[in-house]
């Protein structure tokens, strides 16, 4: 971020008292209770989809909202993790937890390579570089023999957790997915509120000053990039097991755009915004799936409206109303 422009990702960055604010604990608790009841009321696969995208968007938000780095290529991590997990579960016959771990590690490695190159440029160049590398991964997935080209990897077995608990039942799988996603969200919360997270926000708000204070800015940027890529990968891996499918859609640039939209709509730099954004967009896609290209037009329209009139996002606006960081 350049110094001259006004700080735009605020709303959550006021000085916070030591310790976890009580209202955050309450929101997390209420969220958990709601998510425990949800699969008995709604279709479990639908909520699992929301959960996976909530983790994906929160991972992007860690980079964008708190690191100030707009990655337009996060589908690369989501998608390749999804492919690795699908391949590990289907061809190698590994148990789901190992398959998800492998996918996450693959995404982390990819994040290390792409991140190390991308952080050499700033601002919009950073966005273009990440987008271009993601497209390279897409072409790779299109041609590589193990990805199945246009068909993707289909009929991925969900397997038995730890070799003991069969996950074929949607409800059983739901609680595994909930554990993974909730764990991921808590990890992101912890990262944001650690000393590391404070330095990150300092870099976002004023990079030259952070450099002059002696922080190795590029190391922080790379670290947060790798963390964000790993968590995006974890979301992709989980998604591969839920839908038993890894396909080119997961690595295409439209996926990168969608996750940016979720973060923007929910509220960049807020803790719960990406979750809300993911829920809104996934619900919208589900209800309007039969309208074909109208979904794309609607998403574009939401982008335009969000940028022009609604830059704080849903949660950002609520946070301003109640005068508390969310």
């Amino acid at each position, binding site marked *: 971020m350049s110094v001259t422009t006004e700080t735009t990702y605020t709303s959550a960055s006021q000085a916070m008292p030591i310790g976890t604010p009580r209202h955050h604990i309450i929101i997390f608790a209420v969220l958990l209770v709601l998510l425990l009841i949800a699969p008995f009321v709604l279709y479990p696969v639908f909520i699992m989809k929301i959960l996976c995208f909530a983790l994906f968007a929160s991972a992007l938000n860690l980079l964008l909202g708190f690191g100030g780095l707009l990655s337009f290529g996060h589908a690369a991590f989501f998608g390749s993790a999804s492919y690795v997990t699908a391949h590990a579960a289907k061809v190698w016959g590994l148990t789901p937890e190992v398959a998800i771990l492998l996918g996450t590690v693959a995404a982390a490695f990819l994040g290390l390579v792409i991140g190390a190159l991308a952080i050499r440029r700033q601002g919009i160049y950073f966005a273009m570089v990440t987008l*271009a590398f993601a497209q390279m991964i897409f072409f790779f997935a299109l041609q590589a023999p193990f990805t199945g080209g246009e068909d993707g990897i289909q009929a991925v077995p969900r397997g038995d957790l730890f070799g003991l608990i069969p996950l074929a039942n949607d409800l059983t799988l739901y609680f595994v997915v909930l554990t993974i996603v909730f764990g991921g969200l808590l990890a992101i919360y912890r990262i944001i509120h650690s000393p590391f997270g404070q330095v990150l926000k300092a870099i976002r708000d004023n990079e030259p000053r952070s450099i002059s204070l002696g922080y190795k800015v590029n190391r922080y940027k790379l670290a947060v990039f790798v963390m964000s890529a790993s968590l995006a990968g974890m979301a992709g891996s989980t998604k591969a097991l839920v839908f038993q499918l890894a396909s080119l859609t997961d690595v295409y*640039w439209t996926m990168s755009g969608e996750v940016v939209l979720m973060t923007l709509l929910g509220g960049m730099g807020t803790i719960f915004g990406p979750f809300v954004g993911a829920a809104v967009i996934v619900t919208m896609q589900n209800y309007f799936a039969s309208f074909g290209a109208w979904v794309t037009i609607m998403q574009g329209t939401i*982008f335009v409206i969000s940028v022009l009139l609604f830059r704080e996002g849903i949660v950002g606006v609520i946070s301003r109303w109640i005068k508390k960081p969310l």
Partner: protein
Amino acid sequence: MFELLGIPPQALFGQLLLGLINGSFYALLSLGLAVIFGLLNIINFSHGAQYMMGAFVAWMGLTYLGIPYWGALVVVPLVVGATGVVIERLMISRLYHLDHLYGLLLTFGLALIIQGLFRNGFGVSGLPYSIPPQLSGGTNLGFMFLPNYRGWVVVASLLVCFGTWFAIERTRLGAYLRAATENPTLVGAFGINVPRMITLTYGFGVALAAFAGVLAAPIYSVNPNMGADLIIVVFAVVVIGGMGSILGAILTGFGLGIVEGLTKVFYPEASSVAIFVIMAIVLLVKPAGLFGRTA
């Protein structure tokens, strides 16, 4: 006839020509991006969609109004450029006081809307646009067969690129433009209407994209997705060249097109990723880009 590394010269020159044609489009599009970026400081993500609009408006002009190719070459950039002016006035101009990333997000949304609208209206199968009769057929150059239209694409792109370079670097209007890029406030103080210049610059950049679209219509099938993947490659071209210099954008565009063509001859599997690999190397060696000023 000589052979080079076991590659028949027809294949080599054929791919070089293809590379040159791709390079013509890379150059035109990255030139438009560079012109817009210079003054507006935003990356125009809808550039690919506007290129696609150029091809579609040419097709609609021919089908519904009977406007021939040569007419389209002039009219279509004006029409699409005018939509660009409207977009700049209504939307982009509201974002100048914000971080540049918002411009990128806004134009990404616009690209989604434009693509979705054309996909709804015309499907994704692609529409044919025939080569104008004056340019059909080909010429035998002795070492290869050159389809006339493809030769024309390269010539037209070179002409427009050179014209743009000349207008920006060698005319009074271009001098105002370059001055406003350096310091808009001071230029405004000298009595030049900078906001109007910004609007027209955006319109001009969009018109360049539409011109490329008309050029592309007879070669590629006219379909709503034609710009989406192309623009990402053009972004890589822009990162490699750096957006500081007009001439740099043109040279990088043509150069990378040729490199891509050569990769198709010698190592076809890598041709779709060649430009991205070059981008990675440039980021390692010269992060600001080949012609870029250090940001």
